[in-house]
């Protein structure tokens, strides 16, 4: 059984169909990539899965359980965590407190949550900066913090919205290594990414969205040579 099962999900904003009848399955333990040109509905799909938007039709099941009626915090408690494309740190408090808040969803003890948060910050290489206010971190560190906070909720499925965007090549390599480590620890990953190097090396499978519809699905090598995908990204005249 797939860990996440999306069937016929559509989301409209007025006349615009942002996500159009999308089906997808995520298998336990894999890294599934989601790509598509700007405005193709990737983030909207994420928002539908995590309860921030309510789709007009379709079904979303996590371990066979319907997520569609649940609120974002309930979905998090079920074990689905996410990061945001535009980082949303709790800017006035320290990095450690940010991650502690994530860990508090699994415990009522502040001590335990802080220990857990320190472990995760250490894992992500942020422990030296844990006492800085989140707003004083670099954008790369804020992205790691976003990831740390999500990990602190102990997810089974982690949805990552462009964690590598805006990072330099060295930082990108670090993020790739990090995501591999997270996968090895038993977390299933669903990753939106524009940085092709990252997605092509990481993902076991890739799904391509265009104008809200799924136009391709397959291994990275298949996607890279798929005519429709190249057309969607570059336009018809560049078709090889």
């Amino acid at each position, binding site marked *: 059984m797939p860990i996440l099962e999306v069937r016929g999900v559509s989301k409209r904003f007025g006349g615009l169909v942002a996500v159009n009848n999308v089906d997808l399955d995520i298998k336990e333990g894999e890294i599934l990539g989601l790509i598509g040109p700007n405005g193709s509905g990737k983030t909207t799909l994420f928002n539908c899965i*995590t309860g*921030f938007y309510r789709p007009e039709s379709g079904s979303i099941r996590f371990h066979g359980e319907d997520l569609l009626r649940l*609120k*974002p*915090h*309930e979905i*998090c*408690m079920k074990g689905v*965590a*996410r990061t*945001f494309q535009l980082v*949303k*740190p*709790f*800017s*006035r*408090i320290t990095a450690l*407190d940010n991650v*502690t*808040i*994530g860990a*508090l*969803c699994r415990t*009522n003890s*502040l001590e335990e*949550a802080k220990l857990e948060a320190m472990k995760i910050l250490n894992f992500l290489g942020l422990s030296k900066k844990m006492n800085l206010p989140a707003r004083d971190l670099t954008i790369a560190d804020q992205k790691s913090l976003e990831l740390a*906070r*999500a990990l*602190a*909720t102990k997810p089974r499925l982690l949805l990552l919205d462009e964690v590598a965007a805006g990072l330099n090549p060295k930082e990108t390599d670090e993020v790739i290594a990090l995501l591999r480590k997270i996968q090895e620890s038993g977390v299933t990953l669903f990753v939106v990414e524009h940085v092709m190097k990252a997605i092509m090396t990481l993902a076991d499978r890739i799904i391509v969205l265009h104008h809200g519809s799924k136009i391709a699905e397959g291994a990275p090598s298949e996607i890279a040579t798929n005519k429709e995908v190249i057309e969607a990204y570059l336009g018809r005249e560049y078709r090889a």
Partner: protein
Amino acid sequence: MRVKLYEKISKLSSPKYYFLLILAITTILLPLALNPFQVHVLVLVYIYAILAESWNIIGGYSGQGSFLNAAFFGIAAYASSLLFILYGISPWIGMFVGAFLSVLLAIGAGYLCFRFGLKGHFFFLASIGITVAIQRAFINWYWPVNGDLIGGAYGVWVPVIKGDSLYHFQFRGKAPYYYIALAILLAELYITYKIQNSKLGYYFTAIRDDEDAAESLGIDTLKYKIVAFAISAALTAPAGTFYAQYFLFIDPFTVLTDMLSIEMVIVAVIGGMGTIFGPVIGAMILRPIMEYVRAFLGARSGLDLIITGLIIIFIATLRPRGFIKWFEDGYNYIAGHLPTIHVGGEKERAHSGS
């Protein structure tokens, strides 16, 4: 064992502790040294500190600018006064009834506002609207007492008891009121401290800084905002009953006015929102200035309000985070320059040397 005891003593003799000890003794002895007007000003300082401290829970820590807190204050003032007049129930019990009713209002209003996603200016407008509606209701609400009507626009006089009575919450002098207000304030500071260092406090802060991120981390933002509102209401209520017993007269224009909410916000903002001592410092600075200016220049001139306005502008430009920062710096400076008292004598020094 011995070593532990010495450790404790040397801790107690550190500048921080005897600074606090001096502060505590001064606070307790103040009413003996001051004239009644000065004690009166301090009582007002404590009332406003309590009000700003309770507003701080919903407005400072949780970031929801509530203007409904005046209603919590007024409801508690009315609840204890009316229970006393109509049924002879002690104002102390009335205080808890008032707190209970305020909490109910907070839960109801909070659910209505937050369920439908009212944030920022819209929550602020809705909370003003509810306050005004409650004020209007009380202006037109009368209670029969011995064939007479009390309440409504005339307000309610709390019957005066002869002599001092703790049961009736009435005293001839100002000192008992001073100590009661101080006790309520200290209790609320302790509660705020406990909240700040708990899951609840962390969740309130998360909601203040980013609600979407908070939701994504498993925080039921609707529930926790209502909880913050209810705590804020429960902490506001004792000040309402205290006010009624201190002035022995309440009417909808003084205890149910949105002006009261504005003053809570000003005190908390000037002192430092989202900090434990910020509201206290705000009250210590603002109330004396306002009371003395009012006493010397007369309430009608409006000069006290002009001066308050100037102070707010001053703070906003110089200290957007409130006066508390200056106090922290000042405290650290003083604490750093105080000599340490060596209670343990040679043994203690030998221990600290090892």
